[in-house]
C-alpha cells in the first residue's frame, strides 16, 4: 500500500499544479497565455534529466553488482527519461510557434534535448533488439546509458558553441529574472512532476520485478521438466 503512496500524492498534486499554472500564476506580459506551457515544459525537462541521470547511475551499479533488479530499475528510468524528453520536444515547438513564429529554431537546450532523446531511443532499441540472453542485453544497455549520460554536458556545450554563443561571453541561467509568483508556480509544478515521476517509476519497477519473477519461475519449471526427463 505504501508503494502506491506516490501515485496517490501525484493524483492530488497534478490538479494543484494545473491550478497554479493556469489560475494562480500571473500572465506573462509579452507572451500572454501561451507562456503558461512553461510550467509543464520546464518540469518535464527536469524529469527527463532525472530519468537519464538515474538510468546512468543504476547502470553503473548494475555493472558493478550484476543484480538484475538494478537493470530493471535502469530500464524504468530510461523509459521515463524518454517519456519526459518527448513531452519537452512537443511542448517546446508549441511554445516557440506563437512566440517566435517558427516551430523549430535550433534553440540550444531544445536541440540538446532532441539529441538526448535520440540517444536514449537508441538505448531502448538496443534493449529491444538484443538476443535471448538477458544479462548480455543488460550489460550492453548499461554501457550505452553511461556513455550517453557522460555525453550530455559535452553535447550541450557543443550545441551552444555551434549556435554562436561563444564561450565566456554569456551565461544563460535557468530561471533568471523570473517573477516570484511565477517562481512559486514553477516550484509547485516541478514538485507535482517529481511525484508523477516517482509514481510512474515505482509502478514500472513493480512491473519489471514481476517480469523477473515470472522468468525465474520459468527457469524453475524448465529445470524441473528437464531434470525429470533426464533422470527418469
Amino acid at each position, binding site marked *: 500500500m505504501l508503494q502506491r503512496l506516490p501515485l496517490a500524492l501525484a493524483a492530488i498534486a497534478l490538479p494543484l499544479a494545473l491550478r497554479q499554472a493556469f489560475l494562480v500564476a500571473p500572465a506573462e506580459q509579452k507572451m500572454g497565455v501561451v507562456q503558461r506551457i512553461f510550467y509543464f515544459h520546464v518540469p518535464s525537462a527536469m524529469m527527463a534529466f532525472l530519468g537519464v541521470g538515474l538510468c546512468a547511475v543504476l547502470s553503473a551499479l548494475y555493472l558493478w553488482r550484476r543484480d538484475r533488479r538494478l537493470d530493471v530499475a535502469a530500464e524504468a528510468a530510461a523509459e521515463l527519461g524518454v517519456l519526459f524528453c518527448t513531452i519537452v520536444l512537443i511542448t517546446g515547438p508549441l511554445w516557440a510557434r506563437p512566440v517566435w513564429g517558427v516551430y523549430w529554431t535550433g534553440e540550444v537546450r531544445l536541440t540538446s534535448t532532441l539529441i538526448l532523446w535520440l540517444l536514449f531511443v*537508441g538505448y531502448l532499441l*538496443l534493449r529491444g533488439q538484443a538476443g535471448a540472453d538477458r544479462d548480455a542485453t543488460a550489460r550492453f544497455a548499461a554501457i550505452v546509458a553511461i556513455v550517453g549520460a557522460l555525453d550530455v554536458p559535452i553535447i550541450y556545450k557543443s550545441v551552444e558553441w555551434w549556435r554562436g554563443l561563444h564561450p565566456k561571453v554569456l551565461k544563460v541561467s535557468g530561471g533568471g529574472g523570473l517573477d516570484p509568483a511565477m517562481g512559486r508556480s514553477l516550484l509547485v509544478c516541478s514538485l507535482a512532476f517529481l511525484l508523477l515521476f516517482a509514481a510512474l517509476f515505482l509502478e514500472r519497477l513493480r512491473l519489471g520485478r514481476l517480469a523477473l519473477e515470472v522468468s525465474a519461475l520459468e527457469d524453475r519449471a524448465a529445470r524441473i521438466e528437464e531434470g525429470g526427463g533426464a533422470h527418469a
Partner: protein
Amino acid sequence: MSGAGATRETGAVHDAAAARDPRTARGIGMLRGALAVAGKDLRAELRSPAQAASLFVFALLVVVVFHFAFDLTAAEFTTLGPGILWAAILFTGVLALDRGFRVEREGGRLDGLRLAPMAPSALYFGKVVSVCTVMAAVELVLVPLAAVLFNQPFGGWMARLAPILLLNTIGFAAVGCLFACITTQTRHGDLLLPVLLFPASVPIALAAVRATGHVLAGRPLDRFAHWIALSGAYDLIFLAAAVLLFDHALDD
C-alpha cells in the same frame, strides 16, 4: 620445474618451463597487445585490397552525391564543404567500425583474442588504432579529391587540417569501438550502430565541421581553439570511460 619436458627435445623443455613461469603467465602488457591486434588488422586490410577499396569508393561517393545535390561553387565550399567532408568521413567510419568488429564476432574469433594473456583494454586500443588508421587512410585520399572536386587550391590548409582530422577521428573511434563491440553481438547490429553512434558523436561532428570551416576560411587558430579543446576533451573522456567499460562489452 616439471619433468614433463624431459622426454622432449630441449626446445620443448624451455617452452614448457616458460609457459609455467609466473612472469610470462602474467601477460604481455597493454601496448604489445594493442599493437599485435592493430598490426593483424592492418595486415589483413592490405591483404584484401578490394574490400578496403570499397571504403574509399563509398567515401568518395558521399562527396560526389553532395556535390551534385548542392551544386556548389568554389566559394560555397568554405561554408558547406566541411559538413560534406565530415559526413563522408563519419559514414565511412561506421562501415569501418562494423567491419572491424564483425570479423572478430564471426567464427568466435573474439574468444581467441580474449584468451590472450592481456587486459581487455589492449584489444580495445588495438581496434581504436586500426580503425583510426583505416579512417586516416580514407581521409588522406578524400581531402585532396574533395579539393579537386570543389575547385579548391592545394595548400597549407591541408596540413593545418591534419590535427583536426586526427583528434576527431580518434574521438569517433573511441566511442565507436565500444559501441561496435556491442552492436556486432546484437541482432541487426549493423543498423543499430549508426543509430547509437551518431547522436553520441554530435560533439565530434560539430567540433570537426566548425574547426574545418575555420581552417578553410584561413582564420587564425585562436578563433577555433575552443573546438579543438572540445575534441581533445571528448577523446580523453571516452577513451578513459571505454577502458573501464570495454570489459563489460566482452564478458559473457
